[in-house]
């Protein structure tokens, strides 16, 4: 089922537009995303158990210890473009496998640390590099494998984060009690090695972009070939793409507001007088609803009733609204309701935020786009939490912080509405024959894709055409 259409597409158009299998092995890749996101972000979220131990063992302050996660996360986001470029050159499979190895190695070396600096370098730097090499390519692979059910696949893949947050905290606690933090880090390094297996599972759907491009065009000069490889690898041409720039600004705003409740909700609950257990219950409830939101949003978006950017705007708008309502919830039941809304919208937004990228920039540039996006949106993440903390210090309550977070999201929503082709019922048209020098079959390939996609457009009031590049079977 997978092979024939893939071949037909490939031979009729030299630009590597490979039909997404939409099933079959694709679900195995979704499983790989599930485990990878669990072992990357679920792990990061549960590292708090270790911090208590580090503070006691090294005698450093909690703030100094929290830099470990900051460095790790920063590495993961900042190095995303490099991971994307490497995948463009070498293919996703070797990159992800290397990433799995590095992330495990970082933890194994960390178990031998004798100072906090060692932890920064091992758990922060090395593992952070590993995480960068894993996350973006895996996400891109899932998106390559799915066209119709892309959002659902993404949503299912990301549920790994939510479920692992539940499972890892008690597991880490047990490991620390049984083996002390050194032994626990060693075991976690081993667990991280499982991501090598996750990478092995990602069968390439075709040759990596840069390899194909350099094959297709004739290069005279070796030096310019290297430069153009770098240029293509990083997809730097995206920086002049209006849709991409708009979306990256929107994502930066989203990122600025998105994490603030995770950081401040518990403190806020304490602040207005709820007990520890009540606050913890709020967080748990939010987590569960988050998982539901991811899957539900993915499934609903794939039904095709609304265009993906429209759905994204709906969810982010609701999210911003719920954030602004949090300070207004003074009664416990009110806080639970608003947190439910927040959790659902936050989860619903995540798969769409990724799945909409191919629609904006096209499948072939998707990998590079993801890398660059992560880099640009990290600015939002870095600014958002300290800003809200500063606001809290100056005003005394979290009200202004939550309102600021909500307004960031609303701002992002407004920016999203300025995306090209946002206000049209149809999505962006299929790509014109590519600018690269390529074989003559390309024009036919472009035309063929157009006829194929228009034939398969569903007969609704607003014909959905968000994935014009692949053909539905």
């Amino acid at each position: 089922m997978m092979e024939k259409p893939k071949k037909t597409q490939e031979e009729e158009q030299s630009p590597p537009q490979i039909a997404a299998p939409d099933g079959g092995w694709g679900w195995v890749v979704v499983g790989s995303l599930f485990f990878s996101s669990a072992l990357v972000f679920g792990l990061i979220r549960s590292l708090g158990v270790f911090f208590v131990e580090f503070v006691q063992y090294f005698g450093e302050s909690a703030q100094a210890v929290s830099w470990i996660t900051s460095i790790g996360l920063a590495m993961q986001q900042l190095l995303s473009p490099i991971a994307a470029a490497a995948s463009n050159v070498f293919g996703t499979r070797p990159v992800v496998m290397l990433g799995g190895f590095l992330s495990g190695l970082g933890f194994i070396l960390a178990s031998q640390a004798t100072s906090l600096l060692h932890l920064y370098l091992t758990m922060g730097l090395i593992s952070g590099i590993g995480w960068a090499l894993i996350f973006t390519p895996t996400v891109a692979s899932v998106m390559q494998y799915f066209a119709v059910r892309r959002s659902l696949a993404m949503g299912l893949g990301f549920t790994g984060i939510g479920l692992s947050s539940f499972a890892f905290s008690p597991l880490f606690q047990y490991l620390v009690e049984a083996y002390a933090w050194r032994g626990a880090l060693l075991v976690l390094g081993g667990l991280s090695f499982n991501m090598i297996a996750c990478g092995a599972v990602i069968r390439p759907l075709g040759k990596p972009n840069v390899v194909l491009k350099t094959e297709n065009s004739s290069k005279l000069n070796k030096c310019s070939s290297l430069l153009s490889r770098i240029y293509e690898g990083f997809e730097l041409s995206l920086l002049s793409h209006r849709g991409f720039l708009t979306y990256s600004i929107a994502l930066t705003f989203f990122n600025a507001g998105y994490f603030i409740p995770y950081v401040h909700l518990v403190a806020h609950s304490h602040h207005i007088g709820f007990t520890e257990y009540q606050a913890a219950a709020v967080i748990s409830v939010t987590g569960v609803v988050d998982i539901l939101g991811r899957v539900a949003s993915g499934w609903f978006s794939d039904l095709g009733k609304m265009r993906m950017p429209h759905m994204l705007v709906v969810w982010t708008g609701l999210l911003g609204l719920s954030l602004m309502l949090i300070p207004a919830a003074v009664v416990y039941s009110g806080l639970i309701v608003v947190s439910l809304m927040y959790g659902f919208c936050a989860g619903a937004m995540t798969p769409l935020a990724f799945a909409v990228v191919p629609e904006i920039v096209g499948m072939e540039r998707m990998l590079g786009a993801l890398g660059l996006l992560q880099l640009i949106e990290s600015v939002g993440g870095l600014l958002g939490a300290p800003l809200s903390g500063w606001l809290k210090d100056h005003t005394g309550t979290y009200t202004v912080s939550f309102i600021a977070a909500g307004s960031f999201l609303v701002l992002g929503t407004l920016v999203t509405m300025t995306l090209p082709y946002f206000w049209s019922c149809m999505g962006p048209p299929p790509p014109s024959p590519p600018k690269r020098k390529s074989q003559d079959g390309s024009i036919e390939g472009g035309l063929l894709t157009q006829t194929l996609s228009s034939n398969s457009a569903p007969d609704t009031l607003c014909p959905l055409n968000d994935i014009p590049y692949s053909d539905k079977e």
Partner: protein
Amino acid sequence: MPRPRRAQHCCRETALFSMANVRHLILLLLYCDGMNTETTPSPPSDPVFTTRKAVSKGQNQVITEELAILTPQNIELLCNLTDIPNNPPNITGYWAKDGQEIENSEETVNRINEQYVLKKTFSIQARDLGNYSCIFRENKAQVTFVLDVPVIKDKRDKPVVSYTRDSVVLECKLKYTPNTWNWYKANNTEKELINVTANPLNYKIFNNGNRTKLTILNLSEEHSGKYICSAVFDIKPSESYIELKVLSYTEPLKPFIAIVVEVIVLVTLILLWEKCSKPQHDSSSAGENDVCSEQTTKLTRDESNGVENNTARRRKLDD
């Protein structure tokens, strides 16, 4: 009469410091007053007794107050009972220590302003620490004062784990500052004092007021066991224990090796499975699935292109 005596005793040490300053003196008196209310529940802590209304109906309720005793002293304990039905002119009450009635402690208390106040002064030495209760016979109302040295509260129920040749820090802390701290290692039923001067390479003790830290360097398996931190007060030392477990590095290595083996097996299986399913596709496709054959893919692709769809190929050639 007892009042000045009590004030005198509990404030004796502190009074010496601040006689010079009148302001300090007033603060001092207030402080002493505060201390008094600490040891005796007096009318301000009536809320403790308003719940007694239920008790007077015949149920036994015990209200417990914990008092930390640092030095041998004389303490006056005061019980204040209110809201008794019938309001008799006087009632009888007695004192008990650790459940045993103290002889000749029974008193008849007269009603004053709707309250019945039963009080007694005790001289507390190390052997006198325990639970002191005032019990009113008529309605069985009871207040228990627990007199004890300050308790070291944060006990870990799980042992502290560390590794050979590593170091570990054991910590104890209290609300009050003792005269000094001592550390012991428990060998079955005996306690062995840890002497830092005799063993400066292995042990370090750092005392900081109400906390103490014992650092053990160069751990070995014999260091496993129970360690007792002892806070020495005038009246009696207060002790708590921490359990230490020293592991060798092979312990966490076992699950680690198991997981690494599992990963290697998984990866091998995955890659093998892919290679095994490749021959099926080889006849019809170029085997682009396999990353290993990327070099040969170009050649084989052209081949199989021709095999699959001759028209397309001819079209290309024609152009």
